[in-house]
């Protein structure tokens, strides 16, 4: 009789379920069962795809010690709560919830299953058995911004965002701060399209920006649509988001920011297996390999690659931080004094734009 089974009986009185669940969930020699809850489909070429790659990496690295399951297209809200309990009931001892909107559900379900470990991506609410994790994508944005500052001829970039949440705002600010270190007149126009996945709208937003003089495009949505437009229009280029998208835009992709969740998943699963896991906020970046810079595109000259690598390596060894002052806000008023670096807490609630961003209405 396993621990899982006792819990099941205690919580649900689910004797009837055992014949159905028993065969698969409990027959083996107790691998750690790890569940993943995804807000979209694993085939989205972006965010959810990257999490699924991390899941596969976890299976590959820890082999028979783990067993993974995932549930995709889970709406944010009560449906997520049900899915989390479903996974808990099936014997998952570690569950990753990979969208911000799952936060309430994670906290609620974690209360009901105190001996299961939960990790919530991009969230900020923690509990004894709930940790949070994210990746410092803005470090990658600084590398992209450096390339943009060097290569843009018009000095204008466009940025397609979903919603103006801190994570997106942070990325925009990081991008333009880096670009303005090269070209002090560099500006960026964010366009929010109120969706994570509407490829046709992303493409039209890219067209609208290119038609109005931008020659560099970056996006914080899930797919390659904007890059494809950059390729079609032959502008200077853009950046892959979440994964290497050079298949979609072999010329236009200057480089890409790769979400590499695998190491975090391996580390967390190992900690749970060893009994050393504790609730904390984990926010690694380039240094830990959670954020990676993909291959540089054929258009990027050697000198620019060197500059980009310098920014990347500076962030890896800690000698460079993009959010170190002086930083002015978009009105030109000083927001961060020289030598001061924004704290993580300040970053996580960032709701203001730096100089060079043409703020949306």
């Amino acid at each position, binding site marked *: 009789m396993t621990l899982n089974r006792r819990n099941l009986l205690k919580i649900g009185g*689910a*004797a009837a*379920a055992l014949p159905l669940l028993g065969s698969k969930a409990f027959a083996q020699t107790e691998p750690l069962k790890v569940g993943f809850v995804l807000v979209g489909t694993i085939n989205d070429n972006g965010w959810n795809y990257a999490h699924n790659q991390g899941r596969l990496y976890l299976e590959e690295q820890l082999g028979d010690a783990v067993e993974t399951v*995932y549930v995709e297209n889970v709406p944010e*809200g*009560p449906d997520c709560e049900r899915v989390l309990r479903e996974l808990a009931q099936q014997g998952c001892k570690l569950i990753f919830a990979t969208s911000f*909107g799952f936060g*309430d559900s994670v906290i609620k379900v974690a209360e009901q299953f105190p001996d299961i470990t939960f990790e919530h991506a991009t969230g900020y609410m923690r509990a004894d058995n709930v940790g949070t994790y994210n990746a410092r994508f803005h470090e990658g944005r600084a590398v992209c911004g450096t390339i943009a500052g060097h290569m843009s001829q018009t000095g204008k970039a466009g940025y397609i965002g979903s919603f103006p949440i801190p994570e997106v705002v942070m990325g925009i600010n990081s991008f333009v701060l880096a670009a303005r270190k090269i070209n002090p007149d560099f500006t960026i126009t964010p366009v929010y399209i109120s969706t994570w996945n509407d490829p046709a709208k992303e493409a039209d937003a890219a067209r609208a920006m290119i038609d109005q003089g931008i020659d560099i495009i970056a996006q914080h949505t899930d797919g390659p649509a904007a890059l494809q437009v950059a390729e079609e229009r032959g502008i200077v280029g853009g950046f892959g988001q979440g994964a290497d998208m050079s298949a979609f835009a072999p010329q236009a992709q200057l480089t890409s920011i790769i979400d590499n969740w695998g190491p975090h998943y391996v580390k967390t699963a190992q900690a749970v297996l060893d009994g050393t896991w504790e609730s904390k906020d984990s926010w690694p970046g380039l240094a830990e390999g959670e954020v990676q810079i993909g291959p540089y595109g054929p258009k990027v000259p050697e000198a620019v690659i060197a500059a980009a690598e310098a920014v990347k390596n500076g962030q890896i060894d800690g000698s460079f931080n993009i959010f170190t002052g002086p930083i002015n806000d978009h009105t030109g008023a000083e927001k961060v004094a020289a030598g001061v670096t924004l704290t993580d807490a300040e970053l*996580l609630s960032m709701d203001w734009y730096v100089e060079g961003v043409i703020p949306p209405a």
Partner: protein
Amino acid sequence: MMQFRLEKRREPSRFMLYATPVAAVFLTMVIGAIIFSAIGFDGIGAVREIFLTPLTNSYKWQDLGVKAAPLIIIGVGLSIAYRANVWNIGAEGQYIMGGLAATWVALASHGSGGWWTLPAMMLAGMAGGAAYGAIPALLKTRLNVNEILTSLMLTYASVQLIYYLVRAPWKDPMGMGFPQTRRFASEALLPNIFPGTIVHAGVPIAVIVALIAWFIMSRSVFGYQMRVVGAAPHAARYGGFSENKTIWLALLVSGGLAGLAGMLEVAGPFQRMVPGFPTNYGFTAIIVAFLGRLNPLGVIFAGIVMAITFVGGEVAQTTIGLSNSATGVFQAMMLFFLLAGDILVRYRLKRVVPQTEARV
């Protein structure tokens, strides 16, 4: 070539009325298993996980209740309207407006609420849904504008209203900039009726609503009026029932119930207003209403069947790795069979000998 002809029954078949939904579910299981096995999936496993596991596993029952409750409440309202031949397909919008009205009460009374908060939210929810249902009613009765089209269009406008409210005026000041309202205060949250479960007060309310509606529809003058106007508008006119009044009642009742469901969802499982609040309950409830044969008691059954496929679809994803899209195909298949079976209630199938001038 074999040809069939439909022959109208003198009376709708009681047997078919109850047998066809059961047959539809059964056919979906059999044919679904065959098709999915043929294209390389574990067809039998899929059927087992989608249709049986949620029922055999008592731990899933609370999930079924919570998922079915809004479907039943909205479906009951729609079945009343459809009986009266009023085609409200904008229940999703009315559900949203109910949720928004209740949210407004919860936010306005935050910190100063009391025992009266939940009842006030309930009233606001029903009023919000009914008010949104009143727009198609007004346009239909005054200007003879098709209510199918107006109620559908208004739904899409209401979705945008949520996005706007949670992004700007109602945004949680402590929410790190994320587009959602603050969590409601405890007086504005539905209590759980069984400690240790997730079954909130909305679940028994759904059953009560269905029972009351059944009683009213079968025993009262109101119910008689709705049924007569729907079934025989000419006769109803002679009988002194006003068609316009029926349209108003149908839309107010179905809108009000959808609004109630919205309030129960936001104060129950959601606990705050979020952009993900519209979860297609209003559209799914249309199917639930038909599956339940426009009978409030049937709607209870239908709401549970739909809930089974949702809950079971997630089980199938985790246990046999069946993708979410395959569950959608199963659901659609079941609906197709159900809708196809409809005709057997009123008609019987007769084989006819092909003739030279047979016209379809």
